[in-house]
């Protein structure tokens, strides 16, 4: 994880949100600085499922995220793009508190799910991660059978009371992940024996088995071939009807294909966010333009 070395100015509370309007726009030639800035575009939506307000993340004394405020709308796919070390994955991980397990990681600001603070003292993180599921870059099925991979979550959350109920959840999840037809006769075979694309769809089935509301995807296709990638992208589009999806991707074409909104991160700052179509045809910030057109930043 690349981080920034510049200093903080101390003010990290939510009051900052109110005075963002007066801040000078970011100097486009400013690369190392983590000073004040203003996100260009529309970070807020009417039907927010999750909301982040003035989020700052530090790893020890390095700051990884600076004053990010962003809504994730219900049933939308939002893509987060940006160069390595821009903080997009860090931001994604704050949404289901995956950063909690990283030593020295400090998250400030407010993040809500359905208007409830997910960093509140009484928040059960296991429950939170069931509501906000995650799919990782490398498919990581458990070294268990395909069936067990999917059944694991519902079992620990007590979602099924009988074998028949569990069978139903497993089948439905595999079906939603577009994998059932391919594996229905080998549910007892190890999940690790599937192809990369199938494993990733198994991980998606595992994530949706616990009926999450939000699915976070951290470069879910970077280890897959174009056909497996196309399947996952098709799946993302179908899943959008039931779930809210936030995806981090290094592939600009993927962001352009699957998302309705796109957020561009640069050195821990949320530089620009808007309709995907606008970002890819007519971005407003020079840094966004430079990144998506492959220019020197």
């Amino acid at each position, binding site marked *: 994880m690349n981080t920034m070395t510049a200093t903080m100015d101390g003010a990290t509370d939510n009051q900052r949100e109110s005075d963002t309007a007066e801040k000078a726009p970011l100097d486009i030639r400013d690369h190392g600085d983590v000073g004040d800035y203003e996100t260009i575009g529309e970070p807020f939506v009417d039907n927010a499922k999750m909301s982040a307000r003035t989020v700052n993340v530090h790893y020890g004394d390095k700051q990884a995220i600076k004053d990010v405020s962003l809504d994730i709308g219900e049933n939308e796919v939002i893509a987060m793009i940006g160069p390595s070390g821009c903080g997009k994955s860090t931001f994604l991980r704050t949404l289901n508190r995956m950063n909690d397990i990283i030593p020295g990681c400090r998250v400030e600001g407010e993040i809500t799910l359905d208007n409830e603070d997910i960093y509140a003292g009484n928040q059960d993180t296991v429950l939170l991660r069931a509501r906000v599921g995650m799919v990782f870059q490398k498919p990581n099925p458990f070294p268990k059978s395909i069936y067990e991979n999917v059944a694991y979550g519902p079992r620990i959350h007590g979602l099924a009371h009988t074998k028949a109920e569990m069978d139903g959840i497993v089948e439905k999840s595999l079906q939603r992940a577009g994998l059932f037809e391919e594996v229905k006769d080998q549910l007892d075979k190890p999940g690790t024996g599937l192809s990369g694309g199938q494993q990733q769809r198994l991980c998606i089935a595992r994530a949706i088995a616990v009926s999450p509301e939000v699915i976070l995807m951290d470069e879910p296709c970077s280890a897959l071939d174009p056909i497996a990638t196309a399947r996952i992208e098709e799946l993302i589009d179908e899943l959008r009807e039931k779930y809210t999806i936030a995806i981090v991707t290094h592939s600009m074409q993927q962001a352009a294909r699957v998302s309705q909104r796109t957020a561009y991160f640069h050195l821990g700052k949320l530089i620009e966010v808007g309709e995907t179509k606008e970002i890819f045809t007519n*971005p407003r910030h020079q840094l966004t333009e430079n990144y998506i057109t492959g220019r020197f930043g």
Partner: protein
Amino acid sequence: MSVKQEDYQQHISARFNTELEELRNHMLEMGGKVEDQLKSALDALMKLDSGDAEQVVGQDAEVNKMEMAIDDECATIIARRQPTASDLRLVIAIIKVNTDLERIGDEAAKVAKQVVRLAESGNSPSNFIEIRHIGNRVAQMLREALDAFARLDVEQAVKVVQSDAEVDKEYGSAMRSLVTFMMEDHRAIGTVLDEMWALRSLERIGDHVCNIAEHLVYLVRGRDVRHGRLEAMEESRG
């Protein structure tokens, strides 16, 4: 995000810089060729020289070839580079300008064909005053639009669109005056009709030039100002 000249030199891929630069140059080269074609057609008209006019008609094949080459270049860039943002707008704008330039070439050839007919039938009662006037204006508009494209100059593009509105007015009054010639002398109807066709082609060229200016605004500002949205166009100057 407005586009600036130097933007085409800043890709991480130097080859991509070259490809976009070449595409732009080829488009401007084709523009120059079409400009020549139009000027030669107008010269041939002034001299009523059917030999020169035939040459203009012949030049059209070359322009057509350039059109296909540029389209091919654009398709290749889209397939290989998947351009986005201003690069995407450049490729889209050039695909469209390319079509307009080719049409201008066609219309110039049509003017030249009318010159051949007019040369056969002798002088006209109007002395081609209207055609000369509108022809020169349209040729100037084309030069200005291409200059604007070369310099990514939105201000100039707006002026071109404004000129076209005037050309349209002048076209209307030129047509009315040619109708009077026909009413005065029915033996002149054939000649005056040929003149009207030439005039009509010039007016069409004005429209295509106008499109080129609008594509330039899209390229530079990312705004679609087509279809009579002169106000939107004027706003985009800022």
